[in-house]
């Protein structure tokens, strides 16, 4: 199998299966979460707290008072990484083309050098966050194999995409194939690992905000 075969497989059957597993997995997990349901809370809310769920969705995106100073790496690294990743996925012209080709939805892209810079920032942030995770005793204790797997699966598409775009190190055909394979892997892992927070984060924030609000606890 030569490199072009690999590329054809990566953007052909492998991508098809990865996309299908990803979509089926996401729908399944969401069903599972919502289907489980919660018992109706018969108790009277401690305080009148309409909208506390929605409020929490936004408030938890900002560091609580004093935390930015205590945990600058976690907050700044987290922001840089997430924004860089979103920029690369959603605003790089070939990615928009891909989404357009499948869903007919499209939007304007950002200039390639800008996307490029955000990818570099994102990769650096991932590196810093990993170092921090390994050096911080609490974070290290909380981390399991799944976390490192998610970290690797997220880094690979960024790294290979950057290298393919710049024609670095190995030849383009193989690099592009590796980039698409890494995306295939990410798509498959997304619904079944902690990476699912892409979809569940706002749901759980809303739920926590709402329930805590009813119990009269700030969240």
């Amino acid at each position, binding site marked *: 199998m*030569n*490199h*072009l*075969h690999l*590329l*054809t497989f990566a*953007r*052909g*059957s492998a*991508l*098809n299966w990865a*996309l*299908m*597993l*990803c*979509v*089926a*997995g*996401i*729908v*399944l*997990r*969401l*069903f*599972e979460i919502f*289907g*489980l*349901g919660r018992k109706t809370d018969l108790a009277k809310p401690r305080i009148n707290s309409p909208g506390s769920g929605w409020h929490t969705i936004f408030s938890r995106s900002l560091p609580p008072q004093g935390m930015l100073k205590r945990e600058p790496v976690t907050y700044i690294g987290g922001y840089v990484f997430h924004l860089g990743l979103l920029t690369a996925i959603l605003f790089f*012209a*070939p990615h928009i*083309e*891909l989404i357009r*080709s*499948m*869903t*007919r939805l499209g939007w304007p892209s950002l*200039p*390639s*050098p800008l996307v490029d810079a955000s990818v570099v920032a994102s990769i650096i942030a991932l590196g810093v966050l990993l170092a921090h995770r390994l050096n911080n005793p609490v974070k290290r204790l909380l981390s399991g194999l799944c976390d490192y797997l998610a970290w690797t699966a997220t880094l690979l598409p960024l790294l290979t995409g950057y290298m393919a775009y710049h024609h670095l190190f190995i*030849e*383009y*055909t193989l690099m*592009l194939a590796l980039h*698409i394979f890494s995306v295939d892997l990410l798509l498959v892992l997304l619904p079944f690992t902690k990476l699912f927070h892409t979809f569940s984060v706002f749901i759980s924030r809303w739920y926590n905000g709402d329930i805590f609000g009813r119990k009269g606890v700030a969240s």
Partner: protein
Amino acid sequence: MKLAEKPDILPGTVGEGLAQRGICRREFLQFCTALTALLALPPTMTVAMAEAISKARRQSVIWLSFQECTGCTESITRSHTPTLENLIFDLISLDYHHTLQAASGEAAEHARELAMKDNFGKYLLIVDGAIPMGNPGFSTIAGISNYDMLMEAAKGAAAIVAVGTCATFGGIPKADPNPTGAVAVSDIIKDKPIINVPGCPPIPVVMTGVLAHFLTFGSIPELDSLGRPKSFYGETIHDHCYRRPFYDQGKFAQTFDDDAARQGWCLFKLGCKGPVTYNVCATTKWNDGTSFPIQSGHGCIGCSEPNFWDAGPLYEALSMPISATASMLGTAAAVGTAAGAAITWHNRSTKAAAKAAHEKVTVQELIREDK
């Protein structure tokens, strides 16, 4: 000075042929200079190459054509003005080529057999076209199947040059669903040196370059992992494309006739396969260096790469999915819904069962019994 005036011209050599045709040494040296550059040899090799070629015996060449469209022969022989490439081509002894030779029928086959016998172990075998393995009757010449003819001719060949993508990688005959069971030369010949010169068709000067290398050094040029001469197939079209600056700046034509296309912007989004295609089209160009597909406004289709016909749509960017569709995603979502519903049902029945099995603790049970 004309070569013919040189005293050291040996009879039966390329030098004699050149002399008879009145080719002057300066012209011949110019040709050799171009060839050394093309073969990525140092310029100092030019004179040595000229000497070696003119002293070489006319190389016996047998050309077999199997499942092909004759485009390779068209490419190699067609030349608007008689160029030196053609002359070199004349100066080999092309003993069998069923499209070009005057003889036909028995006489033609006899010429092939004679050349194979007289030059056993020394002739160069050129093959264009894929070999059908599904049924010997799918393609025959003089009643002989392509496979049998190739196996017989390969026995006495010094080396084999597979010309065109069909002979090198199976090409269009091998494209899905490969109705004839087509294979490449290298799929069935394992005991002879094979030089792959892919392209649909290959560039004429690449062909003559490979022949010149063989005539000069008596050996095959350095090959890559796919058996292609590195000097011609070492870099991609994209590496030398004059539109490359636009690619690097992210400036792409969106359609074949938009303003960007008119300004010569990169054709990547229109399906150009230049980044994954190893060939010298961008530097050597076609038709005496006039142009090449990208210069004419059409992306590279990657015709010199294995399985190019099945490597995704010609007009989709390389980074696009090949066959994923929205309906595929719809099906996946439906499967996810069904599986989700099944899991939900299972979870809920587990919950209901737990609830049903739950025994309430009575006050009686909580009263401590006195001992």
